[in-house]
């Protein structure tokens, strides 16, 4: 269950239900393209969506992650109808979907929804800030470890699909940088990485290998 929806007062949640349709999000699917209108919003339950900012049309950087704690398409709740980021499915799984038009109408008629979304925006801004700092100062290996743990927590599985290209976008480094970092974690027997599949072998060890940002973001989520 999506936590943002779960936090709504019962009445407010029930009036939303009829506008929400269950969908299955698939790895690699682009839900929103940067600079294009938002057609639908998504409330992930067991899926995970990555928010990417792009430059020069191809260099990307993950600026945030949305799982069951949030909503994809938050710009719409803030009064913008164009997505400033690319929303890319990173972990396949179910979500609830609502059309942009319905969402806008609901927002007007359902103040608790706006309030819950605003709290989520605050948490998301904290995550964006932290991710920015981490990207700026921490080494690739520690960032990769953080990213793997954040993914694990959100898809609730220590095994997931992942390509070099994908990781290179997430971490904002070249493919060779990803290879080096992944090999280093593999040599330390913390993960196994084969044919686009990652398996976490040693959770404790991986937690020790990542930067402090993992814990900071985790605490923020707990507070949110």
């Amino acid at each position, binding site marked *: 269950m999506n936590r943002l929806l779960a936090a709504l007062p019962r009445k407010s949640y029930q009036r939303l239900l009829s506008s929400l349709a269950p969908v299955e999000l698939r790895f690699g699917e682009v839900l929103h393209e940067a600079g294009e209108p938002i057609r639908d919003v998504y409330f992930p339950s067991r899926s995970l969506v990555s*928010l990417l*900012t*792009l*430059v*020069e049309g191809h*260099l*990307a*950087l993950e*600026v*945030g992650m949305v799982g069951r704690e949030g909503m994809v398409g938050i*710009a719409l*709740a*803030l*009064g*913008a109808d*164009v997505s*400033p*980021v690319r929303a890319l499915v990173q972990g396949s799984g179910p979500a609830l979907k609502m059309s942009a038009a319905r969402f806008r109408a609901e927002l007007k008629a359902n*103040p608790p929804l706006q*309030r819950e979304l*605003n*709290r989520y*925006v*605050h*948490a*998301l*801004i*904290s995550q*964006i*800030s*932290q*991710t*920015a*700092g*981490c*990207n*700026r*100062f921490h080494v690739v290996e520690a960032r990769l470890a953080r990213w793997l743990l954040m993914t694990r927590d959100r898809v609730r599985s220590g095994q997931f699909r992942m390509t070099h290209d994908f990781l290179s976008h997430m971490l*904002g480094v070249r493919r060779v940088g990803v290879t080096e970092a992944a090999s280093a974690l593999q040599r330390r027997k913390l993960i196994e990485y084969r044919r686009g599949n990652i398996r976490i072998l040693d959770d404790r060890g991986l937690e020790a290998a990542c930067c*402090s*940002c993992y814990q*900071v973001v985790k605490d*923020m989520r707990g507070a949110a």
Partner: protein
Amino acid sequence: MLATRSESNSPKANHLLAALPEDSYRALQPFLEPLQLPLGMVVYESGAAQGYVYFPTSSIVSLLYVLADGASAEIAVTGNEGLVGIALFMGGETTPSRAVVQSAGHGYRLRAAVLKKAFEAGGDLQHLLLRYTQALITQMTQTAVCNRHHAVDQQLCRWLLLSLDRLSGNELVMTQELIANMLGVRREGVTEAAGKLQAEGLIRYSRGRITVLDRRQLEARVCECYAVVKKEYDRLLP
């Protein structure tokens, strides 16, 4: 540090306050306290509880992320187009970043509780502040990607242009150390980047003062990040 009110520095020098419907503005006006924001003043500390939001009029406030190990770098700049402290009406009690005055000047502060009440009443004020929040998020994410992928001299150009847009005039009072903190690079990196721009005749840098000599060239030189942020602000805000 309270300052006196003057015509040239009325609250409406802040674009958000100026854009409020007249009745919303009048309701807030008695609570707006003018103040001076001196260079380097820490407006907010990351994670600390806050009682006020700030509306810069002739100053610039930098939002910095601070990591557990103390390293910090700028995530956004706010001047007369915005306000500092969105967390306080979006539902957080503490701010996730440190806010430091980056260019000295004036501004107004307002008790967070007063703004929160007005915000929760909905209407145009709420819509305006939400759109501002979206614009700020875009600035944050673009700054993050710029930091990751662009050269220091391009980042410096972006930073200069975003700052100038938020001030009148073409001069910034700045130390290399502060710029280095903003960009999250070492001082030598800033010296080199500023030296490059100076050699090309785009800026003059002496004794903590940066004067932009050729704004056109600076715009030609900057990475796309500046335009992305500017476009978003122009689109979403009055």
